[in-house]
């Protein structure tokens, strides 16, 4: 199972218009889309999640077509079954940790009650060490607890893939290091494809089984560093942007990754 994306979108703001022309295929367990801010990473991730409608093109996950402009297919975000970790976590501020995690389990018009007992929620609370803070609101949590809550909320209804939007950018350096290791550990435990966007070369090093370089709205083709264990397969057809793309991490500091996660 993997992402197959080929989309175009023109976004107009007050001062400029921005052309997004993203095209890639990936079958890797962990894919990182890497690029400077303003390159269109967030737009790409939102389009995949169904939060942004491309002007034209096609988005598929495995055999499942999620968007196809030519065939007028546009599966709404709620039926795409992706977990999405937002940059600032987007936890619901008026709900406690337990309610936040249970949020997607009841699709009706009412929020889950503050002490609802749900086996799946309890399991995630326990495995993410959130039982002690289950009754607290997001504003009372540490950065790590917030991230684990957001992750549990995304994972509790068994998504088929996880989308991560700059998961560490809001954190200071020390916490960022620790959270990277923590997220890495958590991702080893869940057996679904992960797509992360980031502007931080360190993230690329840790999570990029496959790397895609995005600059000014297009995927730039770039050969994988020689020491990379996982071959990089890029289908971006805008090779003329090759020279302009941002430098990846130094090959010497490359961290080897197991191909299959230990469950």
């Amino acid at each position: 199972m993997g992402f197959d994306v080929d989309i175009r979108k023109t976004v107009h703001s007050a001062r400029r218009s921005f052309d997004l022309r993203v095209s890639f295929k990936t079958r890797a367990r962990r894919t990182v889309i890497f690029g400077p801010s303003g390159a269109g990473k967030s737009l790409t991730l939102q389009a995949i999640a169904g939060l942004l409608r491309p002007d034209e093109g096609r988005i598929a996950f495995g055999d499942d077509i999620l968007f196809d402009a030519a065939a007028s297919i546009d599966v709404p975000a709620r039926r795409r079954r992706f977990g999405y970790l937002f940059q600032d976590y987007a936890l619901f501020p008026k709900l406690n940790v337990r309610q936040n995690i249970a949020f997607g389990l009841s699709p009706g018009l009412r929020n889950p009650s503050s002490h609802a007992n749900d086996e799946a929620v309890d399991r995630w609370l326990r495995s993410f060490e959130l039982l002690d803070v289950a009754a607290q609101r997001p504003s009372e949590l540490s950065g790590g607890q917030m991230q684990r809550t957001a992750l549990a909320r995304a994972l509790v209804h068994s998504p088929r893939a996880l989308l991560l939007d700059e998961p560490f950018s809001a954190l200071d350096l020390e916490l960022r290091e620790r959270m990277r290791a923590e997220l890495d550990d958590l991702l080893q435990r869940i057996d679904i494809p992960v797509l992360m966007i980031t502007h931080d070369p360190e993230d690329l090093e840790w999570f990029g089984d496959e790397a895609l370089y995005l600059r000014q709205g297009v995927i730039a083709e770039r050969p994988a560093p020689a020491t990379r264990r996982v071959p990089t397969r890029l289908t971006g057809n805008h090779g003329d942007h090759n020279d302009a793309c941002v430098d990846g991490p130094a090959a010497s500091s490359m961290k080897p990754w197991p191909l299959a996660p230990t469950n």
Partner: protein
Amino acid sequence: MDSSVWITLALTLKVAGWATAINLVLGVAVGWLLARRRFIGREFVDAVLTLPLVLPPTVMGYYLLVVIGKRGWLGHWLQQTFGINLIFTWQGAVIAATIVAFPLVLKSARSAFETVDPQLENAARVLGLNEWAVFFRVTIPMAWPGILAGVLLVFARSLGEFGATLMVAGSIPGRTQTLSIAVYEAVQAGQDDTANFLVAVTSITCIAVLLAAGRLAPGQRAR
């Protein structure tokens, strides 16, 4: 104090209560449209709906008579089709109070919706909620303090509505005579005791409502 004062108070609360309930629904719906939907003439619609805030209430009352009066196009149609007459009824007073107070809830609701982080709504969508569930479980709870503050202002404004109400509903004691109109009549008739009492009741109610609205306004929560 004779019992007519209490009848007047009850009628005033009934009119203000209905005007508030209608404005809650209308204000939330239109406020959301103006905050979240892009359409041509959006600011023009906002300006027109804000007019009752700046126009003299008598002018609003005149417009209402033109529309729902016996010879008004809507009033004539209602009379012919359903036999409904709104002029000189408490329902007419509700319509007058609703329209005059509407800008207060519209402004509050629109700015409350504009401050709701769209990312939270997106989070709910990705978690499997349809648009109605997103609205009632994320958008409304986040915007609620601002909406409630506007609704309380509407209630206070409806309690004191005078000009448009007098023109549309008149001043029939026990049927359409609200507190503010009763004050006017009492002063005209030289009934100072009645006027004093009515003024005190109106002032206390309005101060209580304003205090509540101030506490609930966004950014002023005591938590």
